């Protein structure tokens, strides 16, 4: 009896709910379930296939092998093509950028293939596969592409498909206990980084050799075998350096003729657009080679170094403040000294490892960029605090290329409307090109269509670059009093200069001119 007033209240509450329902007064609330990464646990590892994709064929293959070596079941997706773009557009938000459409669409395309062609049930796909990708850093729209994966997968009928992220700047902090399926520990990070660097040296060397091969297709054939050699090493946890030496022996068999004056074209721009080798940039690298250029690509290692630089710069800027700030970059609650030491160690490790690999495979005279120099060159024009995409790097690199005569032409490739690249870098580059009117700089935007127009613009600029490469060689030949025939004879008679790995000292942008100066 003492509880009577309480009973009245609860009875009234029940009655009110019931009556509200009868009157139609409830209001449906929305919920957006976000699946946790934890749903991939250690016991799933044996039965779950990890899908990876996103860089060049060499990188994807080697990362795949490295993860297999760590005990994961892994498959690399093909390079995203225009069919992937269509999937991305259908299931993604309108107004996304190409890299998002291509990469998200590529995953959806593969899952649709598994369902419709390979005959797997949706449940088997959702339970048996996960997609692993690097979490982006913001702040452009591509930086938020994980949201896009979730939306597209849900809309394409793969609700619940797991996308597992590892943060590029998260370091080792992400190891989250024994139960986690994806253990992001030292082995994992080093495995991926080594695979990326091995992919880099292989690619960089191939781009140096292919334009000058005397038997068309010889480089690609050797490259395929080298990928296989390296994959085996990563899979079996064998010596990568030894595998690189084997690659070197294979590559040495390619015959080259570097006496042809070819314009060197550096490809910079938005990270994905300049890295992919598929429809995402209209096979830009191959097109340039077909048009008679030597392509200077940017390695993924440069990106790692940029991230180290960013962290170091930000920490140094904040370490001497009178009080620490909170926020993502503020040092409140963080050990700045330790962080700086770790970054120092990371940079040394990356550079040392890269050079070890480069030497092993025969990539001579290749210098990883000095990020401090790039930042300093850019800072007058592009504030080093402004980030997104490649940040100030595009501007810094162009100034470096021009002042140090690195190439004959620079192409900055980016997706249509790329926020950091088209929206900011290109605007600032206008001032750089006004300062150096002789420099050949071409910004191009990719959309997936309009290939002909883009190629036409490249041909337009390449014409001048080709002339400059020719003029450069003629100048050296004249200086040395050589004619072209004797130059060729001279080079062909030398085992050193005929080698696939030959790299004469850098005086001019073009290899032929440098060779002429060296012989």
């Amino acid at each position, binding site marked *: 009896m003492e509880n009577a007033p309480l009973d*009245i209240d609860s009875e*009234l509450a029940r*009655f009110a709910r019931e*009556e*509200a329902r009868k009157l139609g*007064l409830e*209001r*449906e*609330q929305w919920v957006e379930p976000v699946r946790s990464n934890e749903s991939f646990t250690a016991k799933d590892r044996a039965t779950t296939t990890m899908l990876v994709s996103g860089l060049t064929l060499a990188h994807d293959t080697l990362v795949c092998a490295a993860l297999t070596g760590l005990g994961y079941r892994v498959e690399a997706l093909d390079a995203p093509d225009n069919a992937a773009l*269509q999937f991305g*557009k*259908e299931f993604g*938000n309108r*107004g996304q*950028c190409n890299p998002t459409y291509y990469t998200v669409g590529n995953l959806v395309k593969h899952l649709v293939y598994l369902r419709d062609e390979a005959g797997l049930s949706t449940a088997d796909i959702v339970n048996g596969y996960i997609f692993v990708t690097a979490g982006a850093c*913001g*702040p*452009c*729209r591509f930086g*938020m592409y994980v*949201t*896009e994966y979730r*939306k597209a997968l849900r809309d394409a009928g793969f609700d619940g498909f797991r996308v597992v992220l590892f943060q590029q700047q998260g370091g080792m902090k992400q190891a989250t206990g024994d139960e986690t399926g994806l253990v992001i520990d030292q082995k994992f990070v080093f495995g991926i980084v080594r695979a990326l660097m091995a992919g880099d040296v292989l690619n960089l060397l191939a781009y140096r050799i292919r334009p000058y091969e005397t038997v068309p297709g010889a480089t690609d054939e050797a490259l395929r075998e080298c990928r296989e050699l390296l994959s085996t090493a990563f899979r079996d946890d064998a010596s990568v350096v030894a595998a690189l030496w084997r690659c070197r022996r294979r590559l040495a068999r390619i015959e080259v003729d570097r006496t042809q004056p070819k314009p060197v074209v550096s490809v910079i721009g938005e990270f994905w657009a300049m890295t992919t080798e598929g429809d995402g940039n209209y096979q830009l690298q191959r097109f340039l080679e077909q048009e008679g250029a030597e392509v200077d690509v940017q390695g993924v290692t440069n990106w790692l170094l940029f991230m180290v630089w960013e962290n170091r710069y930000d920490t140094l800027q*904040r370490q*001497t403040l*009178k*009080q620490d*700030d909170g926020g*993502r970059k503020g040092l409140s609650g963080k050990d700045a*000294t330790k962080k*700086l*030491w770790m970054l120092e160690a990371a940079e040394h490790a990356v550079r040392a490892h890269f050079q070890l690999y480069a030497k092993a495979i025969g990539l001579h005279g290749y210098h990883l960029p000095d990020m401090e120099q790039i930042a300093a060159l850019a800072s007058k*024009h*592009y*504030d080093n*605090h*402004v980030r997104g*995409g490649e940040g100030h790097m595009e501007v810094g690199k162009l100034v470096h290329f021009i002042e140090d005569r690195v190439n004959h032409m620079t192409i900055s490739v980016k997706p*249509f*409307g790329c*926020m*950091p690249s088209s*929206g900011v870098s*290109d*605007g600032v*580059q*206008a001032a750089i090109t006004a*300062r150096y*009117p*002789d420099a050949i700089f071409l910004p191009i935007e990719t*959309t997936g*269509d309009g*290939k*002909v*127009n883009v190629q*036409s*613009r490249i*041909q*337009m600029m390449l*014409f001048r670059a080709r002339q400059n490469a020719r003029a450069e060689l003629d100048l050296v030949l004249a200086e040395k009093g050589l004619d072209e025939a004797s130059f060729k004879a001279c080079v062909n008679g030398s085992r050193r200069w005929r080698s696939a790995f030959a790299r004469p000292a850098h005086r001019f942008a073009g290899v032929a001119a440098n060779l002429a100066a060296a012989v």
Partner: protein
Amino acid sequence: MSSTAPSSALAIGLDVGSTTVKAVVVDPATQQILWSDYQRHETRQPEKVMEFLVRIGEAFPAATDIRIFVTGSGSGPLAAPLGARFVQEVNAVTLAVEKLHPDVRAVVELGGQDAKIVMFQEGADGKKTPITSMNDKCASGTGATIDKCMVKVGMKPEELSNLRFDPTRLHHVAAKCGVFAETDIVNLVKSGIPSGEIMNSLADAIVHQNLSVLTRGNTLKDRVLLLGGPNTYLPFLVECWRMRIPETWAQRGYAAPDRAVQELIFTPPNAQYYAAFGAVVYGLAEGNDARYAGLDGLRDYVQNGRAARLGASAGAPLVVDDAVLQAFLDKHTIPSFQPATFLPGTVVRGVIGLDGGSTSTKAVLVGQDGAVLYKSYRLSKGNPIADTREILREIRDYVTGQGATLDCLGFGATGYAAAVLEESVKADVNIVETVAHMMAAVSFFPDVDVICDIGGQDIKVVFLRETPEGGRDVKDFRLSNQCSAGNGTLLQAMAEQFGVPLHQYADTAFAADLSPKFSYGCAVFLDADRVNFQKEGFTAPEMLAGLAQVLPKNVWQYVVQVPRLAQFGTRYVLQGGTQRNLAAVKAQVDYIEARVPDAQVRVHPHCGEAGAIGAAMETLRVVTRRGHSTFIGMDAAIDLAFTTKNDEETRCTFCPNNCSRTFIDTRTPDGRTSRYISGFSCEKGTVESKEALKVLAKQRATLRDQFPNLVHEESTLAFRHFYDQRPLPPAGSSTRDVEVRKLPFFRVARRAFNRGFQRSHADLRGIKVGIPRVLNLYSTGPFFRTFLETLGLSRENVVFSTATSEEMWAEGGRYGSVDPCFPSKVTQAHVHELLMHAHTDNKRGPLDYIWYPCLTHVPSWVSGTMDHAACPIVAGNPNVIKAAFTKEQDFFADRGIEYIDAALSFAEPNLMKKRLFDTWGPRLGVTEDEVGFAVDEGLAALRAFDDSMQAKGRAILDQVEREDRVAILIVGRPYHLDPGLNHGIPEEFQVLGYPVLSMRSLPRDPAWLRRFFGDTDPMSISDVWPENYSANSSQKVWAVRLAARHPNIAVLDLSSFKCGHDAPTYGVIDSIVSKSKTPWSALHDIDANKPGGSIAIRVKTYAYRLKRVEEDLRERSAKRAELARRVAERRRELESQTAAK
């Protein structure tokens, strides 16, 4: 062309463009042109080339050593079969110019599809380097746009060649994009603007576009050569260049030589052959040995080569076999309409519904029982009154022609023409098209779930819900933005281009065995695809089939943006004139059936006249309920006299916009007159006298008080002084400091101590700082004003640029080198204003500084996000602007102004203090203590700004809750507060009686929020969007998340064209509002130009829906009262039971 006796050696140059083939035959020894011709290829490039080569062969029978060079967008695949060398066309033109006109420093070439600018820049060694620039795909300013607009205004080519440029009578035309330009041209035609003025306006817009974008901010220095078809054949365009280029010279202080402008900016004779000639020059210079291989290769290519290459890239055909086609036709062919017949002497009673659309006028006569008795469709002749008179006469004549008489019981209108008809013929009904289409669909298919209407220009998709009475009502809608296409006009235009009559489109397309895969979206992009596919060799039937297949993608993926169609229901009705084209219907049916199980797709039997039928049905309902009609009657309407006036007298002078207005004055036979005014961009344009304007202003003031517009209030509060800052502390007053010492091994040591506050006593009252009123300054403005005022600047010396306006953009928009979203691009015009106009009209002299910091992080009230970063384009914009104003000459230095763009982060106040001291300490001589104090005051001002807005928002929400009304919440980015960027859309709703909330004005008081969020964190959005780095995007999502829980908030979502940061929010916001059933409408892709028609349809449709929402609110309010009554009654029952025990 001169001709000398041919030797055996020849060089042929062929320029195969998107519309024409041009050829020259050159003597390789002298580089003299011996032969030339130029013809349209009608999309048969290889055939036309073959024809040319045959004729060249006949003209030079003795030639044995022939080299051949090809250029132009269509020449690529022809090079190999001909043995020719391909030369990129800009290289070709550049070489031709270098050879023929060595003194030219700039070339502007407008082609059919692309525009190019070449500027010859002189290096230190005197060597000239050509800097070339081509339009990206998202631009118009080309021959194709001019051609299309010429057709729209109804001018003949020979009339155009006699047109002179008259800069005094120009109207707004957006030249950024061909689709936008066409929309503006259609509107000008409808407003009765003379054709010549419209074409002049287009020319001016194109020139402005090229000067502002294509030059990448560089100056076109003399001599300027104008090339390409439009520049060759349209003298008014050349005159426009001759006027606008020298204007940029004057503006930028470039001294041109004292010569006639005709010599400085000129079109050479035979300009059309420059590319073909240049190709030869190029080929010969390169020593290229491209030997002409004869015609066999080309012949083989035409006959076999093309088709063989297509297999891999082609898509599926529209129909796989005849049986499928027949089954489709049986199901979806619309039975032909038989108009009713009447017996002589009978009286036909009915109502007339009229749809004055963008390109056509449709009318129906509907009987009292709702049956369609007669219908008519005619292409618009440009004037809505004239079109209406004609169509009404046709209806009357049809009835009287059979000896019957027509008793018109009422008249209703929809579409662009409805407003003028409501005024002039007193139409009973003026309803928005979307609602008209719904009524038309429901009257034939009462159970419809989704209506898809595809008209000439617009795509409208309406989702319906069942009403309690079992009827159907608008649940939601999607309309195409300006920036989308794939509509009826496009199909029609493409058919015309291939010479296929529209009524044969379907049969032609069904005959194709494969189709090219067009990318969907913009019409300009589709046209670019068309050129590519033609080049690849797809035939007309295949192209038409491919284009029809783009249509559903445009509708569902681009406009509706929801891939899960099944969620809307299973019953689809296709309406709009485009559905007469069965190829379009087939593509739609296939698309929907593939995605919606058990879909029933039906075509409206009167698909072309659905809008008119809807207007008629509504008229029937209105006149029946009211008992009478307001319509002036058939005869009076048919005999309505009218005059249209558009001149200096009708121009609106009530604001600096000076809109060009059109007055349409009508007079009925019995002498009643009315005036309809069109062409204004704001309310002021609706009146003619100052007195009337005063009345209007008073009305507006009343309206403002009654229905506040917090978007407007926030936009002014952000920049004016409202916070009285504390004065700087006196020197020596106690302050806490920290000494920081750097130690070896990356270590630092800090020591805190007390000391006296350091004052500089600098007198800064005379220092003038200009800040552009742009982008994130809209959310941080109070900080900057207060910071500077605290340091000692006087209030009037903290100068913000004015709000964005068309004039500002026209004057200052020619410096940028990139083409991002308009809000970022327009910043150059703000900085230009500060440079050129701020403080120049008084004796204080120009500004000392222009301060436009790179704001990397901005304040945000949302928690649980990854970061509070600003958009990278916005953050980097100050660097871009610096480049734009310093690359050719340093405009800042020239005026003694220092430009400051150092980066700042609002996420880290201590870092901000340091960076601000680094910036201002040396410049103003202020101390670190003073800067630190000023930063604290600035941040306090931001808090006061927030508090003030929230108090206002809370008052509005309390009021609408009390009164069961709806408030409109504008969600957007901070700069959408700028009236020049939001195009006055918030005001449109204010005028309709809805209070307008800004995102900042939403209350963030935890106690108030608990009502809606319970125990969940009200300030976090991690449940809907965990990976969020952008402060402004997360605030937008936060606002929608609150709106989804507040019954009295309706959302209007604004987003600018090319906004990369908004793209990820679309899906998140869509899933929130769909689940919560929150009223939501969006205007995405807002750009520089104001899409008046598009805004009007949205506002009206949304207002129609919001009326229903308010009805629901009242109903729920009554139910809640009923619930309270029942609960109270139950309590009494329970209490009496307890007492009884």
